[in-house]
């Protein structure tokens, strides 16, 4: 089941695809040339899948950009040059790219230009659950939203046509359940990319300064007027009118994306599929006004089903007001549905039943009187971040000072949980250094200020914060957790590994050189192996006691990648064992270090290592004050 077969399989063939793989196939089928972006759950698999196709379709020009803004700018250049281009990112990534997004919306697209925003209702893997359909309203950019993997592929292919036809950027909005849903996809034809392309020196369009942008702004409004008319005929929007009633009322529904699939389930569950009218939106902005008026004319009451913010609901109510339906029709949305989190399937069934006054009874819902503990994610066994956090915590105790540890987005954010509790503030990508800049203005040199972030995050938006610190003399200790990978999102490469998205060699950017180039003096730069714990503690203390802007690079490869390397080279990693006689039950390894492979037996008052979980990093050997932990010679 090689991923690349998605590229090779013939049109007409059925394949089970992850939503993101279907999006990638759609991008390929459209004859797209440029694909750029930054990894982030739930969007990461899109560019990864495209990269696996590059061998077979060398016209694909793909990259992991260092951040979403650069990614979108790369795609914009493609569009300016008349080639189809896509930028892929998670919802919060669009915030980073928003500067480019809001103005390319004015200039519009030449070659088809699609921005994928993978939203995350329920915050499965994100710091917030913002609703990026707002970016469509904000920038006057049409928003597409698919309901199934098949639709995702078909709609993506069409999005490029649409973009070129109207010379508009298209925002392709998905949610986690679509990105990480799987379904049957019938493959389509792979279009050949345009062979002729080139830049056009249309400065009045591509140079967005005030005199030009005033004109572009008018064009944008005119363009949206035309699109607003045409979406009434779009095959992506489906209006199904029914003349029947449910309990004496004519009922209508409007929905899109994943909630629409729940609605379909609910209607079939309640056996009222043919008795109600539905409007399925594939284009969620701008709304098809004429279709909505037709629907309003046909029903007594209308339910809008959308996750997160009441965007469709508000716009539909506006249309109803303008068209004089107020008082005639009951329009309901967030009065029935929550504004936060993802909808469970049964919630939609329950609410639809309530709205239609249908009898609906589940068989008894199994329940337990117990309150179940959550299962929080943890740093892996052998994770080098744990070693760094342990060293930082140890120093905090030794120096009898509580550090302010600003941190960032990545696996290491899990360092906030027990037993490490080594993170005090975290907002956004690159924010660790940014916040430490601010803290340094308020707290004296006695207060250690740490900014802790990963290698990929440092490249993403950490560097401007560092330059700011050097320039403004905002003193801090920046700890870069360099595990040679963008691990949380699936081990993507980054400038620090020097390997490109296609796994071909690029040019490696050496963090210590970059830091030096930003103006940090050489004596303020440290580079240590994260797992060399004694040396880490010693050198970190030097770094904390030094003055000015300091950078400590804690380097050790991600343990999951290390295991992969061992496997590839047929090496069995060592395992460690705790000598029961020597263990005094102090629990430092368990209660302060907290590797998931280490267990503690309360009755025996002894710690032990779970051999099936141990990855042989050996750090625990050095933290045990009794010297009770040793490498096992015989496995």
């Amino acid at each position: 089941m090689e991923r690349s077969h998605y590229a090779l399989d013939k049109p007409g063939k059925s394949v089970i695809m992850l939503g993101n793989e279907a999006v990638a196939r759609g991008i390929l089928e459209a004859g797209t040339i440029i694909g750029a972006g930054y990894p982030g759950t739930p969007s990461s698999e899109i560019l990864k899948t495209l990269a696996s196709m590059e061998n077979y379709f060398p016209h694909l020009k793909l990259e992991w950009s260092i951040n979403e803004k650069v990614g979108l700018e790369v795609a914009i250049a493609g569009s300016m040059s008349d080639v189809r281009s896509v930028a892929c990112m998670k919802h919060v990534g669009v915030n980073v790219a928003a500067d480019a997004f809001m103005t390319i919306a004015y200039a519009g697209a030449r070659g088809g230009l699609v921005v994928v925003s993978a939203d995350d209702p329920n915050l499965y893997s994100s710091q917030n659950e913002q609703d990026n359909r707002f970016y469509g309203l904000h920038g006057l950019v049409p928003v597409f939203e698919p309901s199934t993997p098949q639709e995702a592929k078909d709609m993506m292919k069409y999005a490029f046509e649409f973009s070129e036809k109207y010379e508009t950027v298209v925002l392709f909005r998905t949610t986690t359940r679509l990105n990480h849903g799987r379904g049957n996809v019938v493959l389509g034809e792979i279009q050949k990319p345009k062979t002729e392309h080139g830049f056009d020196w249309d400065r009045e369009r591509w140079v967005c300064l005030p005199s030009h942008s005033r004109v572009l702004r008018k064009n944008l409004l005119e363009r949206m007027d035309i699109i607003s008319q045409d979406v009434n005929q779009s095959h992506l929007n489906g209006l199904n009118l029914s003349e029947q009633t449910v309990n004496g009322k004519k009922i209508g529904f409007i929905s899109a994306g994943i909630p629409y699939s729940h609605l379909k389930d609910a209607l079939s569950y309640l056996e009222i599929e043919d008795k109600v009218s539905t409007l399925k939106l594939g284009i969620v902005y701008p709304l098809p006004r004429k279709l909505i008026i037709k629907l309003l004319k046909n029903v007594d009451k209308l339910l809008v089903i959308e996750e997160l913010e009441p965007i469709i609901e508000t716009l539909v109510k506006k249309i109803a007001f303008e068209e004089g339906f107020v008082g005639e029709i009951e329009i309901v949305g967030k009065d029935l549905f929550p504004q936060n989190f993802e909808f469970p399937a049964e919630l939609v069934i329950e609410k639809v039943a309530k709205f239609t006054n249908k009898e609906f009874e589940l068989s008894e819902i199994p329940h337990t009187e117990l309150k179940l503990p959550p299962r929080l994610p943890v740093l892996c066994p052998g994770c080098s971040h744990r070693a760094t956090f342990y060293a930082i915590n140890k120093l905090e105790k030794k120096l009898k000072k509580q550090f302010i540890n600003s941190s960032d987005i990545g696996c290491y954010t899990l360092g906030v949980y027990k037993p490490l509790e080594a993170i005090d503030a975290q907002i956004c990508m690159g924010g660790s250094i940014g916040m430490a800049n601010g803290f340094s203005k308020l707290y004296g040199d006695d207060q250690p200020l740490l900014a802790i972030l990963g290698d990929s995050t440092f490249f993403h938006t950490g560097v401007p914060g560092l330059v700011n610190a050097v320039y403004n003399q905002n003193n801090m200790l920046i700890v870069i957790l360099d595990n040679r990978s963008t691990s949380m999102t699936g081990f993507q490469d980054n400038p620090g590994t020097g390997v490109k998205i296609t796994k071909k060699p690029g040019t490696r950017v050496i963090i210590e050189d970059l830091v030096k180039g930003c103006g940090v003096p050489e004596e303020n730069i440290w580079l240590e192996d994260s797992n060399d714990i004694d040396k880490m503690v010693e050198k970190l203390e030097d770094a904390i006691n030094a003055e000015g802007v300091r950078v400590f690079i804690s380097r050790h490869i991600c343990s999951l990648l290390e295991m992969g390397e061992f496997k590839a080279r047929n090496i069995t990693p060592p395992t460690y064992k705790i000598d029961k006689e020597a263990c005094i039950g102090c629990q430092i390894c368990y209660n302060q270090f907290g590797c998931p492979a280490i267990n503690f037996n309360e009755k025996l008052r002894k710690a032990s290592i779970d051999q099936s979980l141990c990855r042989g990093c050996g750090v625990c050997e050095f933290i045990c004050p009794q010297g009770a932990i040793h490498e096992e010679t015989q496995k």
Partner: protein
Amino acid sequence: MDIFNILIAGIGGQGTILLGNILREYGLRSPLIKNVVGTETRGVSQREGSVSSTVRYLIDSKIYSLEQGYEIEDLVSPLIPTNDAHLIIGLEPLETLRNLKFISEKTEIIYNTHKRFPRNVLLNSELEGEYPSNAYILDILDQFARRTISMDFTELSIQYFESSIYANIISLGVSVKEFQNILHKKLILKVIKDYFPDSTKNTEAFELGFDLV
């Protein structure tokens, strides 16, 4: 529309995505099953957090495509509604209990009794809640489900293969034995063979599970 719903619940790293993939690929190849949908947990929870996969077989339906102009009628949600699971593969006791709402008198549960305590419980984190006993959980499952088969698949995997990682495939073997009308052994084995570069141990693990019941 006739739908067969499978839920796989466990911990990040136990192979819930993998089981989902095998069962969905089976659905695609099986002539009995017209369409397949499902979903899985990815991202931060894959670091030993709570995860689940769903597999929904549409026994009789048309494939829905915008491009080819098929009807929208057969579009279904990737999520399973309350009470609606036919088969639950619970790879960990607490995670099985967490998905109680999907159980009804039509549900059969393949239940791994091997406990993995969350770190936050072991370290007496302020987060409330207690880890229930296997007896307590089995009592509830018996009360609500049609049938439960419980066994320590992890221990079995370690015993036979010196590694815990085959617990998921062993429990798949049990599931296939229990649902032979829908899950055909020969085709599942073919999918397993195609899925892994070297499928010897996984095939053995499957056979072990199949012969357990």
